[in-house]
């Protein structure tokens, strides 16, 4: 993303909307400026701000006049008055930032908008997580902190060493140079994204081990982590297996997404494409 300095009037509205705090008013240039290393190309500034198309010279003159009288115009806070944001052509490896940060862009490897896959949301159709399984989604960087691939790799290497199966269709898995070791391709390790989801599936018997492994990696990486645990309910709609394990580990289970089982398969019924890559 770029900000056109000929258009920017340094109103400062965009500095608040950037999820990474990467936009600031440069005191010398007197223009909004993007810290390119912190920017994750989420396009929140471009997509979320409403746009006026006012004349920059007139707006600057008006702002100077008001500022001289110590008066501040109280505009709507989510507007770029001169439509100064201009997307630039992203090339490798920077393009991975947008793939993981702008949810409107379907990831090439999944076809799903966002950073993960369908997980248990379509489990009624795919049967991806069966009885006796736990599907973990380990999201790094959320909420609003961001993560570099170097830290994602740290998590993946630890999981691979434990012999878990990575979700094949997950974008992170597709960027591994060696799935057996959880190694991510070297040319993107310093790239920063808003968040990324590592997806694995293990037998219920390994659920506690995996949670403890994630806790251990969290101590070594410089970001936040949010874990989701997907399970298949029994015929009565109950889960009497995984929830007790999670509660014993100290989790207060307050929120969940619940697949209510209304999905139907289409006419084609080949083998599931939700394969797992076993290390």
């Amino acid at each position, binding site marked *: 993303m770029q900000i056109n300095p000929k258009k920017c009037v340094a109103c400062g509205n965009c500095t*608040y909307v950037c999820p990474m705090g990467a936009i600031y008013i440069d005191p010398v240039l007197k223009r909004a400026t993007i810290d390119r290393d912190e920017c994750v190309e*989420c396009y*929140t500034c471009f*997509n*979320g701000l*409403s*746009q006026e198309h006012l004349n920059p010279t007139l707006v600057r003159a008006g702002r100077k006049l008001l500022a001289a009288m110590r008066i501040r115009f109280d505009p*709507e*806070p*989510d*507007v770029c008055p001169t439509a100064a944001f201009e997307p630039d052509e992203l090339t490798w490896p920077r393009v991975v930032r947008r793939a993981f940060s702008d*949810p*409107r862009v379907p990831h090439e490897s999944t076809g799903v*908008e*966002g950073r993960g896959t*369908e*997980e*248990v*949301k*379509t*489990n009624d*159709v*795919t049967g991806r997580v069966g009885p006796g399984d736990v599907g973990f989604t380990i999201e790094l960087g*959320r*909420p*609003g902190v961001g993560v570099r691939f170097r830290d994602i790799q740290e998590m993946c290497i630890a999981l691979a060493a434990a012999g878990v199966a990575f979700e094949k269709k997950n974008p992170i898995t597709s960027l591994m140079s060696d799935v057996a070791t959880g190694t991510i391709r070297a040319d993107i390790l310093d790239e920063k994204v*808003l968040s990324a989801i590592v997806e694995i599936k293990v037998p219920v018997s390994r659920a506690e081990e995996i949670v403890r492994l994630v*806790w251990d990696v*969290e101590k070594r990486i410089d*970001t*936040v*982590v*949010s874990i989701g*645990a*997907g*399970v*298949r*309910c029994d015929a009565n*709609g*109950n*889960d009497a297996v*995984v929830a007790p394990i*999670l509660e014993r580990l100290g*989790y207060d*289970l*307050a*929120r*969940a*997404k*619940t*697949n*209510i089982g*209304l*999905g139907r*398969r*289409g*006419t*084609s*019924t080949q083998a599931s494409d*939700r394969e797992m890559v076993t290390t």
Partner: protein
Amino acid sequence: MTNTLHRFGSADSFHDDFIVFAMACKGPFKQENALDGLRRFLQIAIEFKPVNLGDARHGGAIRPSRQMNPLAHWARDNAPDFQAVVDGLTDVTTCAAVFDNRENAEKFVKRIKEENLGLSVNVSTSIEGAEDCCEYAGIPRHSVGYSLGFEGKTDKMPNSQVMLLSTMCGHGMISHSLAKKMIDFVKENRRTPEQCAATLTRFCSCGVFNPARAKRILEDARTKTS
């Protein structure tokens, strides 16, 4: 995509937060006529008085403008346009309806079951809230994705009021800074909670942000520090 799962708050705080979303499976199990089913899902949702509606490609019922009239600074239209969401659906993607009370969510889930659209439907709220929806509709839960909350370097996260607001966009499109700014606007009485909730809603790119819950949180934040 776990964009509705990890909302900050206790189970009680989700009493006005029910997201029902539908999606069609990709790959070999792909459903026929999924686009028609998704459009029907959204159209039916309007009957049950949602507070937001959206699809993952085009956004929610309150959207930013590409050509904003400067006079809007004095008279901004913050009303949701639900029909525009239905009419704007062009691709098979995830569609969501957000409700601010259990009764409407329950009735909607029951109706969707009766419609037999063939789509995968999920309810994202407190665990008990979703169980109630299933019980009302007479269906057992198929699968559950639990949120285990936020951990790791949590000292990088802001205070709880900001978290309550910003985590309502799981894609991270609502910055902590903007959420804090909206709280400050309400505290200073520069904007109403409704106006600030609408501002935040515009940044949600898939329509799952709950402006009714945001309004309540902002009103609470007016007189509390965290």
